[in-house]
Every structure is written in structure tokens, then in C-alpha cells.
């Protein structure tokens, strides 16, 4: 029987959730026995090769590309999991939601103490994606099946949840593994 596939992505996150997955250390070799990684920064696969059993999403949506990737993940993954506080509720990047995007851009590109910008340019090339008005948690963009809280969720939390889902057991996360930080 073919192994189930897992896909992962980082949207408006810091990659800490992916690092936490790496912190399962040598268990990564066991994980590779249980699953094949599909589209993920862990390997070379850029586009989905087919339907995946599990999609892990780190980060919320801060620009138009984040939204596109997230919709693509929803389409290709049977179970879609928000990993970490950014994906689940916006996290640190969502601190900008109380401020207008314009003010944020002005501070970074016009007003900062080391800015050199004689022409008053704000980055706007068509090669770079447009920012959204605010940062959206994943469940405001697509349906999410599970949320794993934490910033990041610990390696053990990720391991327990993944193994339970992959072996068809109920996910049971004891108190110590659920952290909201």
C-alpha cells in the first residue's frame, strides 16, 4: 500500500513551526517511514503531485500569494491543520491589524532612521505580491480541520498529533502538550 502523503507550507510565519517539526530529531527517520512528503520545503516538490492525506500550514495570510497557496492546500489535502498561533489566529504578524497598511509601509520605507529614499518609493513592482489590508488567520480563508496551538507547538505535540492521525487513532494531547504562548 502506498504511504500517505504529507504536504507542508509556510505562509506569513517565521518558520519556527517547521523548525519545531525538525526538533523531533532522529524521529524524522521514523516519520519518513510512515509518510511520503509531497509539496514541502523539506524536499524538491514544487507543485502537488496528487491528493495528500495531511496538509500542515504554518502562518496566516498577509499577502495575495499566501491566500492562493492556502486555497491550493485546501484543494489537495484531506485533512488541513493550522500549525501554531500564526496560522490559528494570526500570531505576531497580526499585531499590524490595528494599524493601517499605509502607516506600516511608511514607517519601513519613508520614515525609518536609516532610510535613504530620495524618490519616496514604496516597493510596488509587479514581481512582488500585494499585501492584504490585514493579516487573516487560516480559518477565515478556508475550512480548517484541526488547530495545533503554541508558538511553536512543541516537537512532541507535532509528533503525537501526526502519528495519531496517520495510524487512525484518536488524537489525544495531554495538558503539557497544549500551550498557548
Amino acid at each position, binding site marked *: 500500500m502506498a504511504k500517505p502523503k504529507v504536504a507542508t507550507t509556510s505562509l506569513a510565519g517565521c518558520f*519556527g513551526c517547521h523548525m519545531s517539526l*525538525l526538533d523531533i530529531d532522529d524521529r524524522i527517520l521514523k516519520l519518513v517511514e510512515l509518510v511520503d512528503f509531497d509539496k*514541502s520545503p523539506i*524536499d524538491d516538490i514544487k*507543485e502537488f503531485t496528487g491528493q495528500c492525506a495531511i496538509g500542515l500550514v504554518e502562518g496566516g495570510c498577509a499577502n495575495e500569494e499566501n491566500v492562493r497557496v492556502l486555497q491550493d492546500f485546501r484543494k489537495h489535502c484531506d485533512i488541513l491543520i493550522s500549525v501554531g498561533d500564526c496560522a490559528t489566529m494570526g500570531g505576531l504578524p497580526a499585531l*499590524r491589524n490595528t494599524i493601517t497598511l499605509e502607516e506600516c509601509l511608511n514607517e519601513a520605507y519613508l520614515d525609518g*532612521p*536609516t532610510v535613504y529614499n530620495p524618490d519616496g518609493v514604496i516597493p510596488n513592482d509587479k*514581481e512582488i505580491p500585494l499585501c492584504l489590508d490585514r493579516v487573516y488567520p487560516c480559518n477565515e480563508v478556508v475550512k480548517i480541520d484541526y488547530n495545533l496551538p503554541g508558538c511553536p507547538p512543541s516537537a512532541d505535540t507535532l509528533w503525537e498529533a501526526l502519528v495519531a492521525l496517520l495510524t487512525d487513532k484518536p488524537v489525544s494531547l495531554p495538558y503539557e502538550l497544549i500551550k498557548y504562548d
Partner: protein
Amino acid sequence: MSTDKSKRIVIEPVTRVEGHGKVSILLDENNKVKQARLHIVEFRGFERFIQGRPFWEVPVLVQRLCGICPVSHHLAAAKAMDIIVGGENLTPTAEKVRRLMHYGQTLQSHALHFFHLCSPDLLFGFDADPAVRNVIGIAAKFPELAVQGVMMRKFGQEIIKATAGKKIHGTGAIPGGINKNISIEERDDFLKDIDQMMEWSRGSVKIAKDYTIENIDMLAPFGSFDSSHMSLIRADGAMDLYHGGLRVIDFEGNKILDHVDYQNYTDYIAEEVKSWSYMKFPFLKSLGTDKGWYRVGPLARLNTCDFIDTPEAEAARKEFMAVTNGKPNNISMAYHWARMIELLHSVEKIKELLNDPDLQGTDLVVKGDRREEAVGLIEAPRGTLFHHYKVNEDDQVTMANLIVSTTHNNVPMNTAVTKVAEEYISGVPEITEGLLNRVEVAIRAYDPCLSCATHAMGKMPLVITLYDHAGNEIDKKSKQ
């Protein structure tokens, strides 16, 4: 879209979709490279939304910009906040525990970068089948090496956990000090494994050194160029990853700045804004935007320092400098060797610190005269990291300015990509596998954190699209 007769190629690392960075190449009528650009496609707005937050939150908040080297942001912010609370002269225990945290961070980050990300390029060759040229391929063919990489990273992460409370986004450093020391049990746990780490890091230096020397003819011109180099430097000229003054040298080694107090960094450094990237382009004001750029990171640190204060890394540094007859090394691919020398240095430092009884001291925090403005700098794994804050009398942040390591290397990475593109595209109006592979290898030498997304765990899958001058797609290739 340009109106002249030029063609555009777009390379998108880890995909346009994951979007943290991508490359576009513009060709002229003769299919020669007219311009190559690395676009950073992420914008956070941190400088603005941090305003109004209480200053003591900052070391914990800012590290959430980067989960690959959070400790660097944590410590740079803490160093600034030390000054705000008048506590920059830390107790020996506080300074040593912070240094231990920082060397643990450097160890885990350098191990991750070298073993998980770059060793496939070096061990299998740039043109090897992408199906095996990844970390799983390394695990299959060189299982011992893969295990060493995983275990060295783990050791570094455990040090971080012991000093910061958590492997990722810890809380150990607070304004004026730290919130815990290192217990005897914690220390003994690490001492048990330290000699193994020493042995593995010697082996890592050897792999990087042998590879560089054996392939020097191919590596020397690869994406290489002369540039200035910047890093912090200790008062006696030693490499120091935690604290010091700023030194900048030119490509021949002449000093442009030396022992500069970084509290005045705005007198020396500015950042240019360009429309095509969310990442700014720093330069030395005295030399201007065209000539004032410089490199940071392991290569720059090896070039700027007079010596390394641990014996084995110092011996390795001498071998490194001998390759360029004691002059600065300007070879992009030499970053890997320099990085492994720093990995060895970090392990030596960790060993030295673990044997220091100050780690068990109980005097953890100092405070003095409150101040309103401060700059904190640190040598992060990827290079010099600047944090600058103003805080009002209600303890709220009113201004924040960050120049992160990868930003300093913005022009250098663009230059490296241009060099590689010129070599592998000129005259051929199509995308070759050689180009695909080499653009990512050149970018990866700089270990950019933009690729938080693109290369944290593996490789940068690339897609290149070739457009004619009217914007019609004429070729598209991806590496799968």
C-alpha cells in the same frame, strides 16, 4: 513591462506560491543578461506595529520574525533593552549564560545549514539528479554524516532550551540580565557529550576544507566578486560573536571603519529603498550607494578579525587565510568553510563556558539609570544584526529600526546571482538545468534567512519562466 526588446526570466525559489523570495532575469536582444534581481516578497511592518508595546516585551516579541535563528533577535533586542534600563554591564553569570545561549544557537544554525541544506550540493555535485540531491539522499548514502548533523543541531537546541527555557522562542534574556542560571545537572548532561561534539566539528571543518581546496579552480570564480566586509570585533581584534565594535574592511583588507561604537551606527550606515524588493539595500554613507555595500556573515567575520581566541578554530583560520595569502577571501563558496570554522569555534566556546563556575552564579540582573534610546548589535549566524529602539517615559516603544543580517547581504546576493546568470545564460535564450542548479547554490552560500521558507529544510525548488519582450511566455522549466 519593459518596452525595449528584452526578455524576462523569472526564477521562483520555493515557488512563487510560498513566496519569500524569487529571481528575475532580464535579457537583451542578444540574449545577454541585462539585469538580474533577487526579489524579497515578504513585508511585515514590524517597525510600526511594535510601537506602543511595553519595552520588556520586545525581546520575546521580535524573535517571532525568524524561527530559524530566534536567539539572535532575542539577544540583540535584550542588549538594547539592557541600555534602556541602565544595565548594560551585565553580571558575569548573566553575560556567560547569554553567550552560552548564543553559541548554542550558532552551532545549531550552522549545523542545519551545512548538513541539512548544503552538503547535498557539495557531496553529490551541483548537477546531480535532484531526486537524490537532498537531505534524504544524504541519509541514504552517508548515514553517519546525516546522524552527526542531526545530533549536532540537537545539542545546540538543547543548550538553547537550558538557557532560554524553550528550543524556539524562549524567554531567558530580560532587560539587564537573564531569568535563570545553569544547574550542575544541566551542565553535567552537556559535558557528557561535549567531546563527541568537538570531534564531529573537527570532522566538519575537514569536509568543508578538503572540498574547497580540491575544487578551488571551479569554486573561485563561481558567483564571486570583490567586496568590503563588515563584522563586530573585540577590542583586541579577536572574533567575537556576542559583542564588540564595528569593523569594515575593503576587498584588500584596508580598514574603512574600526572599533566604531555601534550606538552611532546611523552616522555610518543607511539603507536604500528600491521598488522591486521589500528588502532594503544597506550601504556605508561615506562610500555611497554604488560603492558602499559590503558582505556580512561567516566569510566577512573570518576576513575582518585578527585572530580567533580558541586554539583549534584559530589553527583552522590560519589554514583558511593561507589560501588567499593572508588577504581577504572574496570567494562566495568559501562561506561554507568559514561557517564550519565558526561551528568549531562555537563548540570550543561552549566547552570553555560549561567549565566556568560562573554559570551557577545567582546574581542575574542589574539596573541603573533609565535611558530613552538604545542600539543592540550581535553577530547572528548569518551576520551582523542591528536593533535600534526608542522608549518613552511610560515604557512604551516609540521607534524601532531593525537591519537584519540577510538585508546586509542584499546587494552581494544580487551580485552573485548576476555573475552566475551571466555565465550560464548569455547567448542561449533558454533555461538550462545548469542555470537552475547554480542560481540556488550561489544564493544558498549566503544562507539567507529570506529563505526561512525557501531552504530551511531542504532545497529550493525552482521554476524559471522565460518571457519575450512583449510578456509572452516562451519557455518554462522547473526542477523536479
